[in-house]
């Protein structure tokens, strides 16, 4: 019997006293992330984020960057909204983007020549928020008795109905009229919207919207964080965990579900109106399934139910595709992610070093093999544009027929990764540098050439890896089963 256990009396309760000790500590790179994660309080994190956002707004005047930042802001509003509906109340609402689209179209119709309505922003935006909230209420009514998959199907149809309605509302003949009226512009959308007019100024630049979004998001964050701590926030979580038990506590489950729907819809409606203002045009294809998947991916990636998680998820899902557009950035990002992945899997520094050394060795070995077999390689001039590629060309094999080799290597990569997940623990360390090498090979020889496809692939792969390594999302709480 060890020193520790011998001191314990039988039947005494040491659970709380030993709590710290029994917390499993991770070693290596993940351990540091974990530790930082625990040390820093949420207040510090939010403040740092706010300061960064203000500094960005003050010193960055690059229109492209401001555009990305504003899109991130709108996206963040959406993830915060869906985090209430799905993260807090546990409702799988797949019609969420329809509320966003409704807000955008409502702004377009009240602030353009389409219907010759030019409402002041002080009137149109609050009206839109209220109208979207009411729409959310209407959608929640048939969904009151539904949960999970069933609710998802109903709301998915709602989203599709919205799209069809907008698409077909470009030629509506009202009773008593012979000619048709174009309301939504159909697939052509509505261009030429009025800019927002708030605080005595017309919003001419993206920068104006950036500051507006910063204010709105700050208020929204304060509200969401507060609500999460009140009895309504707690009650939402009980509805998510166990609706029946929740009901037996006297909680009106259906009303809370409706409330979550309404609040989520109102936030989405506001986000839609601001988005329409930034774009100064609306098109229906921006409010379809692709956006929905991105928003859900953001919330799931960050950790459903976690507010900081939603922020991180929004960041990754909205900024990452932009970074991946530029080859040079994407190269750096790819290599960084690769090293981090090896580090995370390797679990400690020593293994990480071994893995990287063997990875480098494999590279030279394969290069030597290729030159022995006298296979032709691509002239490096045409290939190496980005600095990273220039550095890599002395190490990586670049076959003449890169597309074919790349495709084959890609299939091999997927197969190896799949095998890795079921491989014996003894084989895994050997497999890791090989997989990493093939990944770099595929990336440099094939994927970089197809930036648009690659982006999707990367995001998909990221989600798959996340769900395997950390199913609860980056900052999500581990689910605890009560039996």
């Amino acid at each position: 019997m060890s020193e520790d256990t011998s001191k314990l009396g039988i039947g005494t309760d040491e659970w709380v006293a030993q709590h710290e000790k029994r917390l499993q500590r991770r070693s290596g790179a993940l351990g540091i992330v974990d530790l930082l994660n625990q040390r820093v309080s949420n207040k510090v994190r939010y403040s740092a984020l706010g300061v960064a956002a203000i500094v960005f707004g003050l010193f960055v005047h690059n229109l492209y960057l401001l555009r990305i930042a504003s899109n991130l802001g709108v996206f963040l509003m959406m993830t915060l909204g869906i985090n209430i509906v799905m993260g807090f109340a546990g409702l799988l609402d797949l019609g969420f983007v329809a509320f966003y689209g409704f807000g955008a179209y409502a702004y377009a119709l009240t602030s353009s020549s389409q219907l010759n309505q030019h409402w002041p922003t002080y009137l149109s935006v609050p009206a839109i928020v209220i109208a979207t909230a009411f729409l959310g209420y209407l959608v929640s009514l048939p969904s009151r008795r539904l949960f999970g998959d069933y609710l998802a199907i109903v709301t998915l149809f709602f989203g599709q109905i919205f799209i069809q309605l907008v698409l077909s509302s470009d030629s509506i003949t009202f009773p008593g009229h012979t000619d048709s009226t174009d309301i939504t512009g159909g697939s052509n959308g509505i261009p030429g919207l009025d800019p927002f007019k708030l605080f005595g100024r017309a919003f001419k630049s993206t920068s104006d919207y950036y500051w507006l979004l910063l204010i709105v998001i700050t208020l929204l964050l304060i509200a969401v964080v507060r609500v999460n701590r009140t009895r309504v926030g707690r009650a939402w979580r009980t509805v998510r965990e166990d609706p029946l038990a929740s009901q037996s506590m006297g909680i009106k489950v259906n009303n809370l579900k409706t409330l979550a729907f309404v609040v989520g819809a109102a936030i989405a409606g506001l986000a839609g109106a601001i988005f329409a203002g930034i774009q100064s045009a609306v098109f229906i294809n921006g409010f379809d399934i692709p956006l929905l998947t991105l928003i859900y991916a953001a919330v799931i990636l960050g950790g459903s139910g976690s507010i900081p998680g939603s922020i991180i998820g929004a960041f990754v899902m909205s900024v990452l595709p932009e970074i991946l557009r530029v080859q040079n950035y994407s190269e750096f990002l790819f290599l960084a992610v690769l090293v981090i992945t090896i580090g995370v899997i390797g679990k400690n520094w020593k293994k990480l070093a071994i893995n990287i050394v063997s990875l480098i060795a494999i590279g030279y070995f394969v290069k030597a093999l290729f030159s022995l077999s006298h296979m032709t390689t691509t002239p490096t001039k045409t290939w190496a544009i980005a600095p990273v590629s220039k550095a890599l060309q002395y190490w990586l094999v670049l076959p003449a027929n890169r597309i074919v080799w790349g495709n084959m290597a890609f299939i091999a990569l997927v197969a190896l990764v799949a095998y890795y997940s079921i491989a014996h623990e003894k084989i895994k360390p050997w497999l890791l540098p090989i997989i990493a090498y093939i990944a770099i090979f595929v990336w440099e020889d094939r994927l970089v050439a197809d930036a648009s496809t690659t982006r999707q692939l990367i995001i998909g792969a990221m989600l798959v890896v996340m769900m395997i390594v950390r199913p609860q999302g980056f900052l999500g709480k581990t689910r605890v089963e009560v039996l």
Partner: protein
Amino acid sequence: MTPLLTLEEVDTYYGAIHILQKVSLHVNEGELVCLLGGNACGKSTTLKTALGMVSPKVGKITFAGEDVTKKNTSHRVKMGIAVVPENRRLFGPMTVLENLKIGAYVRGEADPVDLERVFELFPKLKDRQSQLAGTLSGGEQQMVAVGRALMSRPRLLLMDEPSMGLSPRLVEQSFEMIAGLHAQGISMLVVEQNANMALSVADRGYVLQTGRIVLEGAAGDLAGHDELRRAYLGR
């Protein structure tokens, strides 16, 4: 004595299946009544009917003199009925403190006085208030479930199988706790399969069999009832 809760000739259906058949029972103020019976005889359904989670097709339910047959669960909890559900049904990923606060939901924000009272009753929970409820042991989860129910200051406590899934010693402790709460004047309706234990602390008891009440009487009489002993007490 005035009855606190009464069920009068209640018929409950699940779809087409007739569960409770003309069930009548009452719990007086300050009384501990147990509801005995084997599996699938309608014990839990009786509790759910009393709580308003299931509505009866025929019959009348009154609480504290008011007809609550058509009232929803939230209304009844507000009036003073609280439940310790079968299998405790804690909210696992939420902390002990949050679970307790949820019990006070119908009263608004939780009253610190009520919290203190629960911690006095179960000092262990005070140390564990920031721990996730799902990580507690069975006995501790039982404490949280009872504490959560007490947070709404109930006049009547419904308990669904408090002995389920607990070790023999914890079952004993559990019933000591029930007797203790009873001694404090809380009225209780306890559904139990462990007839011996239940009758040892109860004032009165009912026996349910396939949706009908087949026996009722003082706990002492029931404990001595030959037929019941053969059927449920194994002697």
